[in-house]
């Protein structure tokens, strides 16, 4: 396989505790080139990663996950990567899932985007009931507003061909970027599929991740963009 095939964009903010586990897992697959985007961390996570051989771009201050992804996308596109993946830094995602997703997208002619889903057959998640309900509401909202039939609209594990990423211009700096990505997929009629992935919530990732009330922030951000 071409050694410059997959750029894995990992945005992070104050993740010094979990980030090395993520690096270790992803580094098992040599085809993955890791692009870290430090979204203005205040801990020593940037100093730690910058000592490794991975790319690590630092925002001058906290801009939001959407902005960090766009920075990673811009870098990956400029370096000519054929596939670009997104991967969360808090240890929820599995590198094995991403590897399987890469194998599927790289051998298929009719998939341009492969989206991770924790709600289809074969997937696993230990999400709480309340979280499941909120995520289902987000899916319903996505179907109503964007018209894209997905089962998991806010899953950060996805792999895309470079032409797909080139069409992105993420304006939603914060968590609503997930809906914005789906909007671009729908608008450009990109061929997409969902792949069952496992999302493991630990006490760390729940504490670090988006709160359940974040759903209302996403609604607010999406609503204000309409004006």
């Amino acid at each position, binding site marked *: 396989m071409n050694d410059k095939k997959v750029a894995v964009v990992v945005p992070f903010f104050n993740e010094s505790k979990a980030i090395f586990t993520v690096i270790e897992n992803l580094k098992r697959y040599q085809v993955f080139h890791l692009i870290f985007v430090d979204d203005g961390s205040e801990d020593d996570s940037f100093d730690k990663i910058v000592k490794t051989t991975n790319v690590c*771009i630092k925002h001058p201050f906290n801009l939001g996950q959407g*902005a960090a992804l766009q920075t990673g996308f811009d870098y990956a596109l400029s370096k000519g990567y054929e596939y670009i993946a997104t991967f969360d830094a808090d240890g929820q995602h599995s590198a094995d899932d991403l590897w399987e997703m890469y194998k599927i997208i790289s051998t298929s002619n009719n998939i341009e985007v492969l989206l991770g889903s924790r709600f289809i057959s074969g997937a696993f998640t230990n999400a709480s009931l309340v979280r499941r309900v909120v995520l289902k509401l987000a899916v319903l909202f996505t179907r109503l507003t964007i018209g894209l039939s997905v089962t998991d609209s806010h899953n950060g594990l996805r792999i895309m061909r470079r032409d797909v990423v080139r069409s992105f211009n993420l304006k939603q700096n914060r968590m609503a970027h997930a809906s914005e990505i789906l909007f671009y997929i729908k608008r450009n009629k990109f061929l997409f599929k969902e792949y069952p992935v496992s999302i493991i919530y630990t006490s760390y990732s729940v504490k670090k991740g988006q709160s359940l009330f974040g759903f209302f922030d996403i609604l607010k951000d999406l609503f204000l963009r309409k*004006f």
Partner: protein
Amino acid sequence: MRWILLVFILLYMSLLVSYIKRGGLISFLILPFCIFAAISIINDSILSAVAHLLGVGRGVDLVLYFLIIFLALYILRIHKLLSEQNDLITVLARKISLSEYENTK
């Protein structure tokens, strides 16, 4: 006094029109309130007539209701402007980050 007020409203309306030209939906929603305010200043009996028509009762109550809607729209507009500024700052900050990374490699 009412003519001074009218001049201010007309100036504000011209500002709104320039925002509307640039695609400002919120400014478009604010504009009818300004037109109504200008008409009411010229002929204050219209205010009472409209209030009566809408079942509000007194013209002064109608002004209060409209003021609340106007302020809500105005806050939304300020929010939108701040959001646009934030977008520009984001673009700039991202460009600086990428160029700093390339320079320090």
